[in-house]
């Protein structure tokens, strides 16, 4: 007879569940307004390196001191949890201004968590943003985000070790190593080094996370493959070109230092490091003139590299659009962009700051990466000339990156390339089919 009572309880529970769901889904809807341009502005940002945090905190303090109408309140969230935090916060609870990782923007637009910013930031600021910056922040012709900086990706190498091993290396985008040349360079260098290793791919970041997709999906595109094309992953991410690229990647693994201490290149255990711009300041200090900056290997269709980084948007329910826009204008001025890029070594994402930059401009040590960023494109329109490819601008990106990076990590530990990539393709296609292609 207990059964009847249980049945009663479950009716109550299901009703409660339905109510909970209903209340969950009523949030959001994109109702930002300009406000009167005064008062408090809530800002969320990821807690990056100490120097980056200091640059941001200084910018906020200086902005608050520079005028008396607007008071910016900054909240820092640890980097590892940042995107999850935004994902699991309902639109109503998001702050006025929030930092976003570039490729996640589309999914936040889809979930109605961010507002268009073109009516709140000044036209001057928008005009001054680099093409890549605007591309990253634009969806269906609407601007949702603008960044202070872009990102640079390539190889950082110890030129002295390469010379000592008799390995010749490329000095321009066009002369990038082919896959075979790269493999034989690794073989030679590993044989010369007591550690037995030749390459550092920052395995300590976790290949299964965003680093995996950012750093290694360019290999697919360089081979003529891609992550996704026309909302379809099957035959693309697991097509013969992509499989060939990942098989080459797998063949490098015996020469890869696990790099638990984040110091493989600096300590001389390897001669080459798969390298993001944020590593440049430390490498440059440790290696001095021996540090050489190279393009990633060319898998057949010309070298390709990653682009895009943290960018700034506004919460979809902000009532402080005007004040938030004024803060973003301030954040994107030359002084603050320079302070941030000095702190993290990134390429500036505004035209005026880029022109004044000494690292990435002609003659600077990172000139090559500056040239790479000059030849940028979106992932759905890759041309022969394009070098830096933005990660796909689709709301399905979280699934794409999770599946590709997981497959990459499995491939690194020896799993069959074709089956790992086909598994990823199936899961991505299911997700797109379920969600009406995230239109």
């Amino acid at each position, binding site marked *: *007879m207990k059964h009847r009572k249980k049945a009663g309880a479950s009716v109550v529970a*299901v009703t409660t569940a339905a109510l909970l769901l209903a209340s969950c889904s009523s949030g959001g809807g994109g109702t930002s307004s300009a406000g009167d341009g005064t008062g408090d502005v809530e800002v969320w940002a990821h807690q990056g390196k100490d120097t980056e945090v200091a640059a941001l905190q200084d910018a906020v303090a200086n902005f608050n001191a520079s005028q008396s109408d607007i008071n910016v309140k900054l909240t820092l969230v640890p980097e590892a949890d940042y995107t999850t935090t935004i994902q699991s916060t309902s*639109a109503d609870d998001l702050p006025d201004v929030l930092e976003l990782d570039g490729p996640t923007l589309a999914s936040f637009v889809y*979930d*109605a968590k961010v507002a268009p910013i073109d009516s709140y930031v000044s036209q001057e600021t928008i005009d001054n943003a680099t093409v890549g910056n605007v591309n990253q922040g634009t969806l269906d012709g609407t601007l949702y985000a603008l960044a202070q900086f872009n990102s640079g990706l390539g190889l950082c190498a110890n030129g002295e070790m390469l010379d000592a091993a008799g390995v010749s290396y490329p000095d321009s985008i066009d002369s990038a190593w082919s896959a075979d040349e790269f493999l034989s360079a690794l073989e030679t260098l590993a044989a010369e080094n007591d550690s037995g290793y030749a390459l550092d791919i920052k395995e*300590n970041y976790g290949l299964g996370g965003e680093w995996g997709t950012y750093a290694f999906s360019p290999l697919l595109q360089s081979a003529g493959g891609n992550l996704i094309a026309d909302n379809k992953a099957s035959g693309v991410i697991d097509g013969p070109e992509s499989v060939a690229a990942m098989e080459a990647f797998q063949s490098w693994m015996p020469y890869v230092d*696990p790099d638990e201490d984040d110091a493989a290149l600096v300590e001389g255990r390897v001669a080459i490091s798969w390298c993001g711009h944020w590593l440049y300041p430390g490498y440059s200090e440790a290696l001095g003139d021996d540090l050489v900056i190279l393009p990633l290997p060319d898998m057949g269709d010309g070298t390709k590299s990653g682009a895009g980084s943290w960018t700034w948007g506004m919460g979809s329910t902000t009532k402080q659009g005007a004040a938030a826009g004024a803060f973003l204008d301030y954040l994107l001025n030359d002084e603050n962009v320079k302070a941030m890029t000095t702190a993290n070594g990134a390429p500036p994402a505004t035209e005026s700051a880029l022109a004044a930059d000494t690292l990435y401009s002609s003659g600077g040590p990172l000139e090559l990466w500056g040239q790479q960023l000059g030849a940028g494109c979106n992932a759905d329109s890759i041309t022969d000339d394009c070098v830096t490819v933005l990660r796909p601008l689709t709301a399905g990106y979280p699934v794409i990156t999770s599946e590709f990076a*997981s497959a990459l990590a499995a491939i690194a530990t*020896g799993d069959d390339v074709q089956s790992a990539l086909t598994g990823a393709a199936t899961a991505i296609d299911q997700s797109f089919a379920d969600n009406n292609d995230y239109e």
Partner: protein
Amino acid sequence: MSNPTAESPRRRSLRWNRRELPGVAMATPGIIGLLVFVAIPFLVAIFLSFHNAQLNSPRAPNYIGITQYTRLFADAQFWRALGNNLTFAAVVIPVQTAIALGLAMLVNQRLRGISVFRALFFLPVIFPMALVAVIWRLILARSEGGLLNSLVHFVTFGQVGPQDWLGNSATALPSIILLSIWQGVGFQMIILLAGLQEIPQERYEAAQLDRANRWQQFLYVTLPGIRNTLIFVVLLTSILAFRVYDQVYILITSGGANRTATQTVLYQATTSVFDQNNLGRASAITVVFFAIVLGITVIQRRLVRQESEA
């Protein structure tokens, strides 16, 4: 409902007399807690598992029937994760319980400074699993400088080169099992130690008078004496073993652990919902997993019943 035997208890249960009221009142907070935090979320999970629900999306979940389940059962990765879970449990439950019992008997002696040993064996339990995973990441590192590789190199006089303990599919899961036992065994040891100390000393004296040797004493005095404690420990270890997640997540995402060989069902569920926003799939995984764990627990309870205290 005309069965007369069913009528009488029902009528009795409806008429709450004064003696039952305090009991009901005292049980209410616990029952509300169970309903709010266990029963309702589980029913929501069942509901969501029949839908395509995206995490915190403004769109309402749409009904897709048993699609999530058919996909799950067709997914080799899911079966692999379940297999990993079962392998983990099948090794950890007997081995960890046996080691815990051995340690408990070791530290159940009247020696000077024995509490120091008890504290030492218990120490890993108070470390958070995240910390343990990070430490073991260094021990199991695949470079020559990895602690375990250095030890193997030293012991074998350099005959055995560095191994990729976490990356190699053959050693990845055993490595996780090893560190999990190291972290968890102290807890079971303390519970078993309490059980051992409950056994009256007279029983051992009587056994000695009967000329029982050490092994016979263990078999006929110690084991029956801690039977209930042992059953409790096995149940607890089983539940903890199926719940394995922290170390797997940390070592896969940042320790280069072989994902295929070490992923567990909970890892798949959290990846689905937090990395891919796929709440429906995650719900289906938890529902299936709940059914499996429930089934195993029920069978376990059937096989070994605790003796009620006299």
